[in-house]
């Protein structure tokens, strides 16, 4: 069931992407496509702050057209359609499935994608970080020891593109399906193999570390970057966020739990 819905969703994204490119000569654009249409295609459903174990259903259990149809307009506008900035539909589906595997939905928080982590990653890869800001990119590019750190000529964005193709090719060969439509157990196994190096894919471990780093950043960063939606991660651990001025509180709450509904930078703008 889940498998078929993921396939249907990805095909839908691909068709929409192709048609909008034809129509507009450019990536899908919110100003020309109507919001409901785009929302149906790319909306990342807003995490329900009260969501419990059913949160999985929010991301993958309901097909895109259904979710648009069943959501009231007010929710739609609140959850603002999220056009992908750089990832293509296959890459986006991969990232959503990956962050849902790294951060599964449970009683502690909605899943990674439901928390906006895929949106975060897309934005990061589309921006300065993804295009190699603060990355020394002069050659020669040589294979070093792990202690030399990152030594590839690829930008983070390019590394995502190249490795996702390799992983999907591998899962197609081994499972007959792309990564995003594997079962959760299968996805976990693929990610574990990347993490340990057992996958033996070129740059597989380097990619995994980047994916995990971006996922954790997206989950825990200020929500203004697109992830940590509804401050789900901050609520999960009990981080109060802003304004973080504790001159009096540090003594008042000495040895006592300080609890406050977290606030983000957005709440002060």
């Amino acid at each position, binding site marked *: 069931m889940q498998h078929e819905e993921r396939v249907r969703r990805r095909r839908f994204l691909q068709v929409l992407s192709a048609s909008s490119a034809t129509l507009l000569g450019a990536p899908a654009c919110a100003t020309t496509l109507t919001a409901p249409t785009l929302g149906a295609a790319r909306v990342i459903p807003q995490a329900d702050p009260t969501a419990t174990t059913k949160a999985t259903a929010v991301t993958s259990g309901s097909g895109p057209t259904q979710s648009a149809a069943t959501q009231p307009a007010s929710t739609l506008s609140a959850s603002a359609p999220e056009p992908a900035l750089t990832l293509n539909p296959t890459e986006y589906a991969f990232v959503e499935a990956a962050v849902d*595997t*790294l951060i*599964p939905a*449970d009683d*502690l*928080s909605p899943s990674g994608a439901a928390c906006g982590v895929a949106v975060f990653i897309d934005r990061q890869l589309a921006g*300065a*970080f993804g295009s*190699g*800001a*603060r*990355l*020394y990119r*002069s050659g*020669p590019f*040589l294979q*070093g020891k*792990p*202690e*030399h*750190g*990152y*030594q590839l000529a690829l930008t983070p964005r390019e590394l995502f593109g190249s490795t996702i193709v390799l992983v999907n090719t591998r899962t197609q060969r081994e499972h007959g399906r792309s990564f995003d439509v594997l079962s959760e157990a299968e996805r*976990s196994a693929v*990610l574990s193999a990347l*993490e340990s190096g057992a996958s033996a894919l070129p740059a597989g471990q380097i990619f995994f570390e980047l994916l*995990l780093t971006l*996922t*954790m*950043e997206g989950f*825990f*960063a*200020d929500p203004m*970057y697109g992830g940590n939606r509804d401050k789900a*991660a*901050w609520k*999960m*651990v*009990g*981080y*109060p*966020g*802003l*304004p*973080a*001025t*504790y*001159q009096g*509180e*540090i*003594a008042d*709450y*000495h*040895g006592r*739990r*300080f609890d406050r509904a977290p606030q983000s*930078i957005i*709440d*002060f*703008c």
Partner: protein
Amino acid sequence: MTTRLKEVDVVIVGFGWTGAIMARELTKAGLSVVGLERGPQRSTAEDFGLPGVRDELKYVHRHELFQDTQQETVSMRHEPSETALPMRRLGAFLPGTGVGGAGSHWNGLHWRLLPSDLSLRSHVTARYGRSAIPDEMSIQDFGVGYDELEPYYDRFEKLCGVSGQAGNLRGQRIEGGNVFEGPRSDHYPNRPLHKTVTGELFETAAKKLGYHPFPAPASNASAAYTNPEGLTLGACQYCGHCERFGCEANAKATPNTTLLPVVLADRNFSLRTHAYVRSLVYDKHARKVRAVQYVDVRDGQEYEQPAKLVILGAYVFNNTLLMLTSGIGRAYDPTTGRGVVGKNYCYQVGGGVQVFVEGRELNPFMGAGALSMNIDDFNGDNFDHAGLGFLGGAWIAAGTSGGRPISHRPVPPGTPRWGSAWKRATARWYRHSFSIGASGANYAHRRNYLDLDPNYRDVLGRPLLRMTYNFRENDYKLSSYCSGVAARIASAMDATIVSTPNPRRGNFSVTPYQSTHNTGGTIMGSNPRDSVVNRYLQSWDADNLFVVGASVFPQNASYNPTGTVGALAYWSADAIVQRYLKAPGPLVHA
């Protein structure tokens, strides 16, 4: 085409702590001073204000205030026989850029060295004999003694409004302070910061074991403070966003808060930002530096700024690079041991344990950069090294510098890094865990040094500085021993879980953050065979050139270097004003 500017009295390369101190002291002496800073000017109001300054992603993980490795980095190899590769992204250390330098985003741990640290080779030889120092361990004396430096330590602490508890006041030991410190002429200007539950747990356990816990000296003002320059620091808000951030409360002492307004108001001073220094114009015959060549990166225009006196006040790497590219002094050769520029590059060696205390409310997000309880019982030569097989030690501490959640996600050993089990552990322990860290000394080794990379270049076309560096036997043993002490303290607590000690193992890696306490390369000493600058930080090869900063440390002690960097800058400035200006020439005759 290079524009040649009118000569000034002094040009200063780099405008962090040392540049600002030198600018203040030399303008006060009536000299015309130009400061050259490669980065931008930033202001508290515009750049470090609420709410934007509380952005962990931007400041910690996207390196907003740090040197841009796309423009300039170092290369690294472990042994002279290997090919170095560039550090393509910052990781292990985070040099600053811009006015204030790393001084605008440091944590504020404000230490003095131990008297024995400053006279290390003499001290070790006297206590343990010459044979206690391995041939490969090229440690030296600084050439300046603690008693000489003490007034300058005191002065820098008063500039910064340091919060702390004296442990040795004019020879009188005071319990609750660091009883191992050298004698102080005065108290700290501010009371210690608030003692957290984490600090109390550490303190109780350390006392139970017979150690001497004390609060770390902090350049985070525990109360509002007006310094001798007439500038006021605000009180620390315990926001937990110190290291890598600017301070909206102006409670963290930085060059920008403690000196800059006074320096900028002086008509003898002018600051040029975006001024990227290419090289020093060296007249070898006359043993003088004639000018500094720099590029204004806003329009690419090249300038030559002649000066009577040149202060090199950049970070360790650029101080060394500029000496090498300008041909001042002889480059160090590890095979012969001859030459001095690039010699004795050192770092620091960490270690420690993670502690989990169920039921104790730690509120980890309330913290300050230097808020910690420490012991110095196993630091420097405060303990007997006979039979231990290593020299030096570590400060060992438990602190609360902030629970920023992208970085602070402690989980017990064996927890997966993702998935449901990871989530459960993260949610359970976020508020109930802290580390006991050991910050260890790193003693110089003949094969650890800096020189010019033959393969890689920076945006100015200069060779990258090449770091040949690895941890050595002394470092592994020191880290293992001090991590063991940390574990002993943890075991003396009523902790739910204590991780296994995590001493430094394996090769040095540029990837995980370890410490921005790089030292050496232009070391100070008592003669030109062993050092680049004399005890007043004056170049042996150009008497109108002074090199200031941690690049002059002959080896690294365990302490954060800024307190000593500031004290040495004042010491050197005093020598320039009191002696050099009256009779320009070598202050020490070789």
